[in-house]
């Protein structure tokens, strides 16, 4: 009589046993990509708002906490930073629990290995982003109890990096070839290798980076036209290596929010509401060379309001879904989001090998003068490093790369200070949220935010 099981919820007591259970848990782990790479995620703020690509005008929520990113006015009490911290570790938990439970499950070893490889890919992806965003971070490699959590302090960046490399190496060795990936959106061997290459680049181990990336070289191809990469219904192209899958049209489906969140606020013609996130700076617009088709594909110059007045707020043009229904006031968009794509691999290869030929493959697609040719604007980009920096900025604009790239090349302060009030290197990591330190005073704060 008193043993009442929940009626409207499954419960954990008999879960994590069968393959069906694990499929459900794996799907939930994949679903954490929606928050981790969402339009207002940590990665979005870090890569774009902190960089010279994006700015904010009016936004919803605690405006000052959002403006603090573009203004380099971050404090440990920033509520957005705390939200990021929560979202990141929540995502990790959902990955870790699968890894933890599958170890002891009595299931087919092949199945277990594949699940483990997928989860370790996700975990590597998450930790790699987190360690860049915060520096030293608590390294949680399995579900931990509350008591254990108090003893889990920040691990040095190097340890986190080593952990990431280990996860990704395992994933690369055990994930299937793309042809064997039966479900669109699941990680393949090459997703792991691409990411591993990126990690090695960040660690300044260019040989290892090249070694990983070269395994990916030729396995994918650039879409013939840059414009063909974008559109609400363009999904999983030959250029896409790891892509987050969305499906619009119904509130019961995992629809995407990039279109709505990146539309200017109160526009009333593009979307019912606009989130006003990642509005495009003039500086980014000016970075494109004349005649670069990527400029129009990347940036909208503004919109015409209901009265017929043109409102010149620049916003993105990559994730557009004007057909998305909005039955309850929110556009249910269909656009996917590419985390890793082949153009990124090519540009990283040039960075790792110092060989401009990969870079030139990217430029050739958009019919721009090749690096090394006379027509190349070498007065502006007078080294291969600067050429790569420029090319990455325009090729991958607003795709959550810019600030990570600048950080990797130690150029963040020099470049961003031209348009935003960044003062020093210490500001290239986020504060540890105040509440984290209040809960566990043994956690230390990053130097830029001590005593605020």
């Amino acid at each position, binding site marked *: 009589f008193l043993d009442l099981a929940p009626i409207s919820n499954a419960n954990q007591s008999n879960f994590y046993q069968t393959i069906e259970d694990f499929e459900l848990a794996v799907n939930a782990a994949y679903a954490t990509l929606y928050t981790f790479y969402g339009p207002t995620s940590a990665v979005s703020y870090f890569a774009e708002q902190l960089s010279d690509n994006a700015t904010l005008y009016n936004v919803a929520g605690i405006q*000052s906490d959002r403006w603090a990113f573009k203004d380099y006015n971050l404090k440990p009490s920033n509520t957005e930073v705390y939200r990021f911290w929560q979202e990141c570790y929540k995502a990790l938990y959902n990955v870790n629990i699968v890894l933890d439970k599958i170890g002891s499950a009595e299931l087919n070893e092949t199945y277990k290995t594949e699940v483990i490889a997928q989860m370790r890919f996700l975990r590597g992806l998450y930790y790699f982003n987190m360690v860049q965003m915060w520096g030293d971070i608590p390294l949680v490699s399995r579900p931990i109890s509350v008591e254990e959590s108090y003893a889990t302090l920040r691990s040095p960046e190097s340890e986190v990096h080593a952990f990431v490399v280990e996860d990704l190496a395992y994933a690369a060795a055990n994930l299937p070839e793309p042809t064997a990936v039966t479900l669109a959106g699941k990680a393949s061997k090459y997703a792991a290798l691409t990411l591993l290459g990126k990690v090695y680049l960040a660690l300044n181990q260019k040989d290892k980076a090249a070694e990983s990336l070269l395994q990916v070289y030729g396995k994918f191809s650039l879409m013939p036209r840059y414009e063909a990469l974008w559109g609400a219904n363009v999904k999983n192209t030959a250029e896409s290596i790891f892509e987050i899958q969305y499906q619009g049209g*119904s509130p019961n489906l995992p629809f995407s929010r990039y279109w709505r969140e990146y539309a200017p606020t109160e526009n009333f013609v593009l979307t019912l509401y606009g989130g006003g996130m990642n509005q495009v700076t003039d500086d980014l617009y000016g970075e494109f060379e004349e005649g670069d088709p990527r400029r129009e594909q990347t940036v909208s110059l503004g919109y015409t309001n209901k009265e017929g*007045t043109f409102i010149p707020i620049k916003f993105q043009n990559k994730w557009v879904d004007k057909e998305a229904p909005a039955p309850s*006031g929110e556009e249910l968009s269909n656009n996917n989001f590419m985390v890793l794509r082949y153009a990124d691999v090519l540009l990283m290869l040039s960075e790792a090998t110092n060989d401009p030929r990969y870079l030139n493959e990217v430029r050739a697609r958009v019919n721009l003068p090749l690096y090394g040719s006379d027509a190349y604007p070498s007065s502006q980009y007078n080294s291969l490093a600067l050429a790569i920096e420029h090319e990455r900025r325009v090729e991958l604009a607003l795709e959550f790369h810019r600030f990570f790239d600048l950080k990797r090349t130690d150029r963040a302060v020099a470049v961003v200070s031209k348009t935003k009030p960044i003062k020093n290197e210490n500001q290239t990591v986020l504060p540890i949220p105040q509440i984290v330190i209040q809960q566990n005073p043994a956690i230390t704060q990053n130097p830029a935010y001590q005593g605020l």
Partner: protein
Amino acid sequence: YSQERSLQGMVTNAKTKEPLPGVGIKTKDGTKSSVTDAEGRFRIVISPNTKSLIISSIGYETKEVPVQQQGLLRIELVEQEQSLDEVVVVGYGTQTKRAVTGAVASISHEKFQDRSFSNVAQSLAGQLAGVNISQSQGAPGQSPNIRIRGTSSITAGTNPLYVVDGMPIENFNLNNINPQDIESVEVLKDASSAAIYGSRGANGVVLVTTKLGKAGTTHVGFNYEYGIQKVSRRIDLMDAQQYIQYYVDAHNNGWINSGEGRSASDPNSVRTKPFQIPEDFTDPVKRAALGTGTDWQDVMFRTAPSHQAQLSVSGGTEKTQFLFSGNYLDQEAVLDQNYLKRLTLRSNIRQQVSDRFAVGLNLGVTGVYDRTEGTEGKSDVISLGLQSAPIFPVYNENGNLGFKDPNSTWYRFAQYTDLQLWHPYSLTRELHKQNKSFNTLGNAFAEYTILDGLKFKTSINANLLNTRYEMFWNKDQKYGYSSALPAQGNANSRFMLNWLSENTLNYDKQFNDHGLAVLLGYTVQKQRDEYQALSAGNFPNNLVPTLNAGTVNGGTSLAYEWAMISYLGRVNYNYKNRYFLSAVLRRDGSSRFGANNRFGYFPSVSAGWVISDEQFFESVKAINNLKLRASYGATGNNQIPNYGPIGLLGASNYVYGSELATGLMLTNIPNPDLRWERTNMLNLGVDVAFLQDRFRLSAEFYHSVTNDLLLNVPVPDITGFATQLTNVGKLRNRGFEVNINSRNIDRDFKWSTDFNLSLNRNKVLQLGPGNAPLLYTDYVVQVKTEVGQPISNFFGYIYDGVYKNQAEIEASPARGDGFTKPGDPKIRDVDGDGRITEADRTIIGNNQPDFIVGLNNSFSFKGIELSFLFQGSFGGEITNQLVRFNGIWNAGRNAFAKVSNYWKSESDPGDGWHFKPTVDPKGYQERFSSYWVEDATFVRLKNIRISYALPQRWVSKTPAKGIRIFANAENVYLWSKYTNYDPENTTYQSTSYSNIFSNAVPSATSTVSVPSGAFLGVDYGSYPLPRVITFGAKIDF
């Protein structure tokens, strides 16, 4: 039998000489009985050996009269002077006041008759010591927040347990019971009286007993009331011209601050978007044309009428007693389009089947139709109305509501995204809502007397509640709210069935000087809640509001259950009706508790001593009653989520390509050890009565410690969770209550005074791991619960006004911070390190009052009665969360009128308190500080009642037996410094995990990261408490 004869008589009140109906007449041997009729007459058949009659009636001293041979027997009864013999309802029975050894506050229907509240709890405010009843929202029928003897929990529920005619119901809404059907309300405050309710008693127990007719003639009563309600205290907001200046200055200040060489005279063409100002505001002619604009409070609120009619029939014989009543209330609300209509029907019957066997049924049916908005603050209509810019008209030239109408000249403002008009009508008239609720509460019982003094009682009780809610939002809302929301509709329904089987055995016997009463019981209770919701969009137009006209795009149904099994026992013993001892034990098992802790024991003991009955006390003539009471016991709090101990899995789906893949993730940390909170309370009380009860005083002291607090402890987020529900922590409440009743003048003219005072001190003794404080944040408002402090301190910076000039900044901790300029907020350097950092945040207030008082004075003279009730609360603070919208610049929202005294320049520094507005605040403008916290002290003239009973010489010419006319005024006047409507306003309600009366969508999981009760005393824009004046007449037939 031939020798039997009939005897007639008449009973009157010895003092007033009025006839007394319903008086019991019995022969001494108990073989024959009768009851007086409405004229006080009786007839009884007696045998020759009947020597005397026993005459008894509640409230009168029982009398034995010798039988006389002939003629009418005239008997006068004397009213009982001894208040000690009043009967009060306690858990699972009744007791005389004399025998009560715990802390029980009792309030009978006279104390709330004529009051106009549809919810009896509202009428009790200020009348009960130790019970803090605060009306957080003024909408019709809203339940107040009730806290009995402080707050005994931090994150579990804090609502008392309601017991209606014996049936315990959590989170019951007393609006479902017609107050005029209520005989009395008793509040069990201490552990010994509440321990009989075991794991549900820790927040106190409110017992509601409905009326039953008395033997005698049938009594028919009719009454009608007409009322008017009005918002008597407005929030003082800026008018259009003040608002325009504020807007212009905020933009200029932001622009000047945004870069070198920028000045207030720069035209829009050189400014970036966020700093542009409409030409209407800068051109003096156009600006003047905007006038003083619209006061949106005038638009929202109206003077609202109400009607109430009631018919009741009660009466009975020695064997059958009954009450039938019907009441209809039709109340408009002061808020546009809002209303409450309620029909209540009640049938209470008790039938003595034989000498040993009685059965009964109490049945109450209530139907409520209402539309209630404006109570959720923040984005609800009242708050949005207060935020709306005053420059806009109620209707534009097209008859539409908003400036976002592209065909209106007002559309010129639409390009300024920081102008706000959430037109109240767009929510009240373009949005259609209705709640319907049907509540049935019934209890059927059978009582069998097994032996003399030994009774078995069994009852089946049920509470069945059905609610329906419908909502339809017109397309575009005439451009009022968002201007672009598509037409959409929602419909949801809730169902709740709670049933209880209660079986008790009662033994009550007097052995010479020893009185013994034993109660044993076994009860089983179960509740099931169901929720269903549907939503639809794509309506082609606004013509058909039902969901069939649109495309259904969402739907869900949920169900929850809980169950309890309880064993209870109580022994009451007295010696010479002078020494009292009582012991209670209850054993509760609940499905809500973890598998490892399913059952709990809740014992208590108590004792009382009526000193004034002692021989040695007889010489003390002035004191006619002196009684000491002491009790100690344990109660529990089970108000935790239904499936709190269980790790629940929630949906989290992914899509691979176009293949939807359902996913499940753990939504909370399971805890099989989870159990009730346990409160141990000591209560000491004394009751004194002087001068034959002319002056009565009762005082109590209590000390309670709650252990095993059910804390939704914030845990490090690296666990993957923000909180975990655990039994840790300890807190203490102790307090003092005093109740004084005095009959100051007691002749033809009567004057009596009731006074009560309560104070409670609340202190947290222990929290989760490392005693880490609990911090909850809503927007920027932070409440902190830490060891050594009361629950939920407001936690932020201390605000010291504005920096008047640069020199002041240079001499302050703000120097060199890179953003503070003259006119900006001055924050106190609490830790004295010479800088303003987050370490300077400190305790800036707490909502719990230092003490609360109630004072009632009643006067009566020849049928006229007059009373005044004052209520006061002293020493608490309230956080005005509307400051977010109306106290600081917030994207063009209107502001409090006082804000226009902001700093404008060194030569025009304003009032020194309000900082200069800016659209781009870089400092502490938006941070939570004492700028947001206000004194919640208030004194309220809560109620005035005046009534007049028409003299009998007039009434006798009508078919009626009695006619009384009355006027009643509620919330007559408020003395308070608070900026918003009312210092009792709090947007957040007591925490409740199973409140199906709320319209909030129930969460499928048990993780509630922020318990709303932690934010009690935070006002995010609430519903004002209107002044209500009612006129009525009561006619008895």
